[in-house]
């Protein structure tokens, strides 16, 4: 049963610390999405990768957030320095894009981040 995995599932840290969240997309998928979910804003797209290249990171605060795909099996989202307003659940999703038609996104279980 292929699934998107995310680590850690929970993270509590203090303001100013660096936070790294990891995602392993489903094998064979070539698109990766990072979302942030909060009560106030709902689900927001932070970044989108296709074939490991970042195509859209317009939703990501550039001064403190960064997203990368070191290889096809790993996507990372880093926050440095973290702030209390970054507290949220961060979801990774992956899919297979052929460049046309509809491409379903499969979501991971999320990382619940609390910044004190």
């Amino acid at each position: 049963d292929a699934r998107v995995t995310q680590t850690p599932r929970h993270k509590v840290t203090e303001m100013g610390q660096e936070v790294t969240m990891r995602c392993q997309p489903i094998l064979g998928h070539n698109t990766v999405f990072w979302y942030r979910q909060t009560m106030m804003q709902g689900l927001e797209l932070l970044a989108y990768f296709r074939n490991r290249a970042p195509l859209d990171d317009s939703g990501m605060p550039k001064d403190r957030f960064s997203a990368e795909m070191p290889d096809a099996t790993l996507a990372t989202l880093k926050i440095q320095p973290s702030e209390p307003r970054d507290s949220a659940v961060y979801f990774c999703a992956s899919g297979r894009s052929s460049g046309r038609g509809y491409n379903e996104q499969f979501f991971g279980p999320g990382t619940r981040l609390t910044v004190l």
Partner: protein
Amino acid sequence: AQSVTQLDSQVPVFEEAPVELRCNYSSSVSVYLFWYVQYPNQGLQLLLKYLSGSTLVKGINGFEAEFNKSQTSFHLRKPSVHISDTAEYFCAVTEGSGGYQKVTFGIGTKLQVIP
């Protein structure tokens, strides 16, 4: 730009009663529409999708939705809910037929099924 409005933040309903969760979208071009379900402490799971063709779409767990272009709506329905349907439901829209397909999600509707 595309957008999604879910009119109800919470919907309580008794077990075995019917339910409708409302969704309206805004887009200047043709769209794909989706409903996702999120159970507590889990990620989102696709419930059903409208891509083209028949406007009545059937999904998993007995849910269905109807695409109404004139009213720009995509309401989700189930004729008889179960306790296990208690979850948060998200309507989503994407424009475009290829390449980059940015999905915009609604704020979510929490369905609470009362025994």
